């Protein structure tokens, strides 16, 4: 059958290459893609370890003794000790970190609960039975998030001074609630939009009012979404520095403000600083990994799934 073989001869130089090329294009498991994936895997591991190394080094240093922590060259395998944590929590080293930690926990948890109380009904009105011009409302919420904190810092400071709200927890809690509300509304709307509307209609058929519908239908159905929203609001409140630094001093001082007392060097204190940074980051690390799958959605204000 020479007539059949000739047309392919000019285009395919070797007898082997034709079928192999075709196979590599159709089957993803071919040798070249496998090698590519292996190389990608190695490179990804190297890059990830590079990015993770400062975190690892911070945690490791927090378990070293002060002289070992200050070693140059670095002592990777120095004996581990809890001294860094003891000096950090010990009253002997200055102010105790417990009041700021408790303040931070209070501000983050209470403001997150407030955010949910306001955001879930709002998201319901925007997602389930959308009010007129609901997209405009959504974008209004979003645009407030684009307004930097410094835009309102001074009036907030002056008002606080006038009404005696400086250095109080409740003022900080109110501001954190306003700060996170837009994110929460966006996230909750996208979660509620995924729920089949028939479920909400059934509740309405039973004659349930808005409060009962929210409490006995919306909250149970949307609880995974509520949890993810809560974790992200918690992280943002816990991390906040500018407002807390401006509006609190001793009574309502939060953990990030407390950390800034370590900004200037104080002799051998790296293990203590590392312990402090680790302790204060721990809640965020836990919340962040717990919300890992929804993290993008929250950070992109619900724009990305």
């Amino acid at each position, binding site marked *: 059958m020479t007539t059949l073989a000739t047309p392919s001869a000019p285009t395919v130089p070797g007898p082997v290459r034709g079928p192999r090329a075709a196979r590599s294009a159709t089957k993803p498991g071919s040798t070249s893609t496998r090698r590519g994936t292996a190389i990608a895997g190695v490179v990804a591991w190297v890059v990830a370890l590079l990015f993770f190394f400062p975190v690892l080094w911070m945690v490791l240093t927090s378990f070293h003794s002060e002289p070992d922590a200050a070693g140059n060259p670095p002592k990777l395998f120095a004996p581990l000790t809890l001294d860094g944590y003891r000096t950090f929590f010990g009253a002997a080293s200055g102010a105790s970190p417990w009041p700021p930690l408790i303040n931070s926990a209070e501000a983050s948890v209470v403001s997150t609960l407030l955010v949910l109380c306001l955001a879930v*009904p709002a998201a319901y009105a925007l997602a389930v039975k959308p009010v007129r011009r609901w997209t405009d409302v959504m974008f209004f919420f979003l645009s407030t998030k684009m307004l930097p904190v410094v835009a309102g810092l*001074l009036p907030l400071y002056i008002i606080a001074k006038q009404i005696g709200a400086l250095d109080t927890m409740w003022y900080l809690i109110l501001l954190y609630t306003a700060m996170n509300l837009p994110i929460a509304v966006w996230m909750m709307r996208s979660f509620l939009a995924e729920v089949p509307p028939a479920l909400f209609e059934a509740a309405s058929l039973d004659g349930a009012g808005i409060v009962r519908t929210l409490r006995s239908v919306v909250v149970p159905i949307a609880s995974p979404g509520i949890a993810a929203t809560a974790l992200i609001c918690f992280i943002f409140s816990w991390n906040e*520095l500018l407002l807390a630094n401006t509006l609190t001093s001793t009574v309502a001082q939060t953990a990030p403000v407390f950390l800034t007392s370590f900004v200037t060097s104080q002799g051998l204190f790296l293990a203590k600083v590392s312990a402090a940074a680790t302790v204060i980051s721990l809640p965020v690390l836990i919340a962040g990994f717990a919300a890992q799958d929804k993290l993008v959605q929250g950070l992109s204000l619900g724009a990305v799934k």
Partner: protein
Amino acid sequence: MALTATPTLTGSVRPSFRARWLAKDGWVRRAPLLPALLFVIVLTQLPFVATLVISLMRWNSNYPDDIGFTGFSNFSKVFTDEHLRSAVFVTIEMTVVVVLVSLLLGLGVALLLNRHFFGRGIVRTLMIAPFLIVPVAAALFWKHGIYNPVYGLLNGLLTLVHGPQVDWITQYPRLAVDVQLIWQWTPFMMLILLAGLQSRPGEVLEAAAVDGASPWKVFRFITVPHLRRYLELGALLGSVYIVQNFDTVYTLTAGALGTANLPYQVYETLYSANDYGLASAQGVIVVIGSILIATFALRTVSTLFTEEVSR
């Protein structure tokens, strides 16, 4: 009472009931929305209006008897004062450098993570970790644990290879700030771009594979056009956050050595100079910068959003 929700009437529920259910418009339906709306307006919009007013005022708390309107003199002061002008440029430079570099690094890591290799989940988790360190804590540890000239990790590693000892923050203050921020923001970019990569239409990729498209062609003609909006989103959201960065500048350098950006400068003017009028004018300038970015950001979000809603 015009029914804005008419398209949904084609649902499986009896139209008569559904129509009545949706028609129950007015304040009953708007009520759940109002508390949140009011809350946000009172606590974010009104203070900004106040800032706008104060920015036009002569108001220094050191001179409580001399308060009045001065027009735009605070604004001209921002642009004639050497320090303040430098703060404007530092803010721009910092935002552009950090966003671009972390976007490119994030894209690289996202492309790697989009393949199925051993331990992919662990790599993803390790990559996210820098973003989950409290910003102040991260900046604090970088300052003492990594950049410190005596016992920092960088000089420690240089000692191992008999390299020179460098006083990182003093010699390269802006680079030190930028690098620390890039380290924290690359995971953010990676997360957004990875989500973008994974939402690429499977049929198109399959068709490309069947047609024998090379990996480069797939990247150039399918991945890049699809990722464009995610790249924009990452860049814009990153800019919105980094323009307002205060924590890193405050912790790493306390605004010294030419690293003071506008948010830090606002804080400084408010605290050290007690010049309320000037601080407000600086705040207003930060807002104008943010609005420029935000306009584009909102447009990008809106494109993604309309697509999702119409789906």
